[in-house]
């Protein structure tokens, strides 16, 4: 410290921040080829480079803040979501927490390698001075990443519990020959298959003539969900049960219309109560004429 150039006048964090900013492009170019960025940003290399730039800028901001070991540094905020997305993507592709952590560790090594390079042409403080703050700063980054991953894992567990709930789509027998399925969560292809099978089984088991599909708990009805719903209605009809879809909220109704979907052939009702009324009416009619289809 004592024999550093007197004109530099920079504290270690400031010098580190300056170094990161000056070398941002080279660092980003190196990082873009590391598995961590390469495997996540697969569309173009430019995007990996851009994402790398964001992380470098963030680290430079943290360093400029003066506290290299500050886990709560505001500088991390802009890249927080990106870090979550990156670490999440890596762990989804099968990497353990420790392995992801190691990949973030590799970011530091790529920068450390550049230190002597930087000093060759630049008039600045001795290389050993930046080595330690650099290690501290990247250590902080790793802790931040691991902490967010642990937090995310907790959320994943919650989400999985929710999904499990969704997978167990119960078909409820509401009345004689009347069944209902309260759908909760997103109706993707896998789930809609489960729903369809459960419903058809229940129709046979209860000799149902009317089925209510309640979508109050379905967050989004896009064209695929609509297609699944229509297929389910058509299959139920083949089994001799008429379906009514209930729980179509106003926002969903408007969206369906603007999307251009035609549910014209499907009976729909706003609320479960309305659907129930329709169903009882329908059931009564069927009872008077037990074979309306044949």
């Amino acid at each position, binding site marked *: 410290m004592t024999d550093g150039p007197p004109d530099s006048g920079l504290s270690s964090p400031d010098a580190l921040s300056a170094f990161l900013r000056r070398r*941002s492009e080279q660092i980003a170019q190196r990082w873009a080829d590391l598995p961590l960025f390469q495997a*996540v*940003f*697969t*569309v*173009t290399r*430019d*995007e990996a480079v851009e*994402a790398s*730039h964001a992380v470098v*800028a963030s680290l430079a901001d943290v360093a400029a803040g003066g506290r290299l070991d500050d886990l709560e540094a505001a500088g991390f905020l*802009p890249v927080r*979501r*990106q870090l979550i*997305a990156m670490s999440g*993507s890596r762990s*989804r592709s099968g990497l353990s927490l420790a392995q992801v952590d190691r990949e973030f560790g590799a970011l530091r090594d790529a920068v450390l390698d550049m230190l002597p390079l930087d000093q060759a042409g630049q008039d600045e403080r001795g290389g050993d001075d930046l080595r330690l703050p650099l290690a501290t700063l990247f250590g902080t980054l790793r802790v931040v990443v691991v902490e967010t991953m642990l937090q995310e894992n907790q959320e994943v567990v919650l989400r999985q519990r929710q999904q499990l709930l969704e997978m167990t789509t119960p078909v409820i027998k509401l009345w004689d020959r009347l069944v209902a399925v309260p759908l909760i969560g*997103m109706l*993707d*292809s*896998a789930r809609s298959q489960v729903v369809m099978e459960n419903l058809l089984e229940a129709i046979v088991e209860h000799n149902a003539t009317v089925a209510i599909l309640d979508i109050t708990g379905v*967050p*989004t*009805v*896009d*064209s*695929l969900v*609509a*297609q699944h719903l229509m297929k389910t209605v058509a299959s139920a009809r083949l089994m001799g049960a008429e379906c009514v879809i209930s729980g179509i909220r*106003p*926002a*969903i109704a*408007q*969206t369906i219309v*603007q*999307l*251009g*979907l035609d549910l014209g052939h499907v009976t729909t009702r706003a609320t479960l109560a309305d659907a129930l009324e329709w169903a009882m009416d329908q059931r009564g009619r069927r009872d008077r004429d037990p074979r309306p289809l044949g």
Partner: protein
Amino acid sequence: MTSVPERAEAVRLPIRGDGDLTAVRHQVRALARELGFGLVQQTKIVTAASELARNTLLHGGGGEVEVVRLEGPSGPGLRVSFTDSGPGIPDVERALQDGFSTANGLGMGLGGAKRLVQEFGIEQAPGGGARVTIASWAVSRPAGFGA
């Protein structure tokens, strides 16, 4: 760096599998809500995003989404871009036609998404794939604007 303010909050998510579609919907809904979108507006942009994310996966073989908050003259907005490295969309007009599908779908996704948002664009991605971008604003434009 954060020299362009609207990009400071850009969130990028990969679209590689069905599970990622859920993440895209959640991300768009959370941000729309945060920006003060009404329930109908939220539902519209989330549904449009759901269609486009599925196209990215299905027709583009996977890719990425970028969700960006915008600051417009009349309030905050939300821009969502989907980029893939698939074959691209050479005949945009045809792809937008209701009922046109090369994948046995309803063919309502692209045209429907366009109707659900205020701004819509299709371009060629740097790698030759498709880039579809949508944007909506929390406060609807005054009636007659741009009509």
